[in-house]
């Protein structure tokens, strides 16, 4: 029990948790299934993050010395190693009680990458063949592991991931002297190749075993180095160009090794910035935005006060107002306050009758934001004053109206001069 605690605490800084991407029906004689689309989160920890997979390390002994990592060689923390049978039993018993959706297995590097990867592979092979486990398995790839091992592991795992951590190679080298970008991108491209080959195979032979059916994911640390949001988003955009890359995660840096001079000391993880990055990520994946629309050289950092979509809208008043009853789906998606769900509802409903602001409100559109950016039948009658949109107000006067109360107060305080009464 103590071991599980230590190893879970070591693994928890990895943010990836999703169990999506594979649809696999239950099979007779095997335990478990995976659901497609959205995975199932089985619980939510006190920090609000979902617990979907049993996220655990095989061991937290590590021969590497990465400055941002809690398990670095030079850290004086409790070390433990789970035996293979222990890990397998815990996984199976948890799964049968509907605690978890599957296993997320990672490990510190012991002896050499190949040795570690081999042990990870052995566990997933055992789970699939001996325990007949049919649930979700997410396996971390060890940087520098050989291709044969990746090939074998990929046949058993649903998703494999390897973390970029730092988008800039020089910063990575400064913080993690044993790693470089080659050791990360090489396995990534090998897995991708495996996925593509497997796709071809499955076209010819329907029952060819699947290879990493849920694709890959990766993670970048935010706020540990000087990278701007532009660098980070450029990198994730490049990642999404790869056909097998499904998700890029952003992890606000938690100061775990405060003594290291190479790292900033943060009182709090940069949660707002992390949130804005995820919002930008969503814009790229679901809202048909391009990366250079969200950030460019002039705006290398995302605005912390307003979300990236609203930020884009304020920079592009010429795009608005959008006519809800005529505009295309893509245009409606760009309106702040309208999300994917309400955009679909709008496009479906307007075949029957004209949409008015009353309908929009009922459908769940955030009219507080959206009303400045749209026209629809009658906007005037419901709001007592004549319609004032972004073009009448000008962006710079609209912006303060859209900030939340707390942000307004903060901005007010910054403008006010403070007198220093000390001496």
């Amino acid at each position, binding site marked *: 029990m103590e071991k599980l605690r230590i190893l879970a605490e070591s693994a928890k800084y990895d943010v990836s948790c999703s169990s999506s991407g594979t649809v696999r029906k239950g099979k007779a004689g095997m335990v478990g299934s995976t659901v497609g689309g959205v995975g199932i989160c089985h619980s939510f920890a006190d920090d609000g993050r979902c617990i979907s997979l049993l996220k655990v390390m095989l061991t937290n002994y590590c021969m590497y010395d990465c400055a941002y990592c809690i398990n670095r060689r030079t850290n004086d923390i409790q070390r433990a190693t789970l035996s293979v049978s222990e890990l397998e039993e815990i996984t199976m018993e948890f799964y*049968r009680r509907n605690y978890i959706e599957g296993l997320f297995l990672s490990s510190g590097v012991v002896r050499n990458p190949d040795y570690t990867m081999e042990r990870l592979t052995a566990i997933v092979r055992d789970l699939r063949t001996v325990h007949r486990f049919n649930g979700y398995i997410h396996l971390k790839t060890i940087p520098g592991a050989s291709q044969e091992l990746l090939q074998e592991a990929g046949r058993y795992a649903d998703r494999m991931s390897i973390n970029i951590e730092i988008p800039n190679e020089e910063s990575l080298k400064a913080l993690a002297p044993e790693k470089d970008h080659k050791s990360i991108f090489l396995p990534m491209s090998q897995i991708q190749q495996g996925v593509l080959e497997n796709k071809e195979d499955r076209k010819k032979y329907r029952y060819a075993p699947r290879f990493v059916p849920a694709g890959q994911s990766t993670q970048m640390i935010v706020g540990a180095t000087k990278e701007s949001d532009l660098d980070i988003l450029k990198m994730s955009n490049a990642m999404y160009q790869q056909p097998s890359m499904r998700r890029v995660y952003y992890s606000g840096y938690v100061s775990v090794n405060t003594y290291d001079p190479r790292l900033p000391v943060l009182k709090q993880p940069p949660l707002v910035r992390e949130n804005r990055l995820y919002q930008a990520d969503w814009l790229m994946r679901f809202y048909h935005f391009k990366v250079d629309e969200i950030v460019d050289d002039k705006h290398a950092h995302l605005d912390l006060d307003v979300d990236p979509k609203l930020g884009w809208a304020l920079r592009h008043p010429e795009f608005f107002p959008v006519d809800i009853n005529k505009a295309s789906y893509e245009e409606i998606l760009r309106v702040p306050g309208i999300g994917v769900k309400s955009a679909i509802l709008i496009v479906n409903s307007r*075949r029957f*009758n004209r949409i008015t602001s009353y309908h929009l409100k009922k*459908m769940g559109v955030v009219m507080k934001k959206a009303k400045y950016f749209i026209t629809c039948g009658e906007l005037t009658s419901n709001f007592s004053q004549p319609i004032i949109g972004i073009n009448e107000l000008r962006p710079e006067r609209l912006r303060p109206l859209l900030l939340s109360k707390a942000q307004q107060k903060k901005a007010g305080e910054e403008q006010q001069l403070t007198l220093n009464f000390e001496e």
Partner: protein
Amino acid sequence: MTVYTFDTTLDGLLTAVFDSFFRKQQDVTLLADGEQLPLFADEPHVVHTDSEKAERVWKGLEKYLSKDGLRMITVSWLSEERTLNQPLFNFICKVFRLKVNGLERNASDSDVLEVRNSCRRVLHEQLRMKQFIRFQKAKDGTYLAVVSPDHNVLPLITDHFQDRFNDQLWLIYDAKRHYGYYYDGKTVIHVTFEDEASVPFDLSSGKMDADILSENDQLFQDLWRTYFKAICIKERMNPKKQLSDMPRRYWKYMTEKNG
């Protein structure tokens, strides 16, 4: 004002639709049997549930609605919300009156939107059941879970659990509606207990009595609680998010929260 009363079954509601067209009456107020009549109401028409008439109405619906639209009706009915009766009735009447295909997609109609939102709430809760059901293992190898969902969602989730745990025996029991589903290794059976007081588990906390709990179940429950505590990052505490994703009303049956 025309008032109909019906027996709060889906068949009854469909029969009411049939009657309203048969009697050429529009703007019907639909009430459940025994509900307080509104002021100045005429003598209400009592709908006698007739499965043949209901079947005819359903056949008609199949012509105009897509599969999703039909499912929307059956799923939203599981919500057991009293306020759903009128909008659902209006929605079905509208389908036949307007005679357009795919009316279920018109979210600008308030009746459609209400049915739709009801359906959404039910689907949301069935997902939550899939997430938050916690099994305990009994000595004879049966896995037991007790729940009390707001809506009657058990029929929606049995397929999922049958598919997933097809080699173990399990029982999911709804403590609020006093019935459950038992999987015997082959099929899922609807079960009720004659004497609920004598069941070997606690209906208010879902805990199995210690003498029938399998021997190492307690160990795994403790392991799970340990894991649950360990995975949290202290620097990022966010109880608000936790509560919005995992509302407190579900906690009483969850191993990690009721220990």
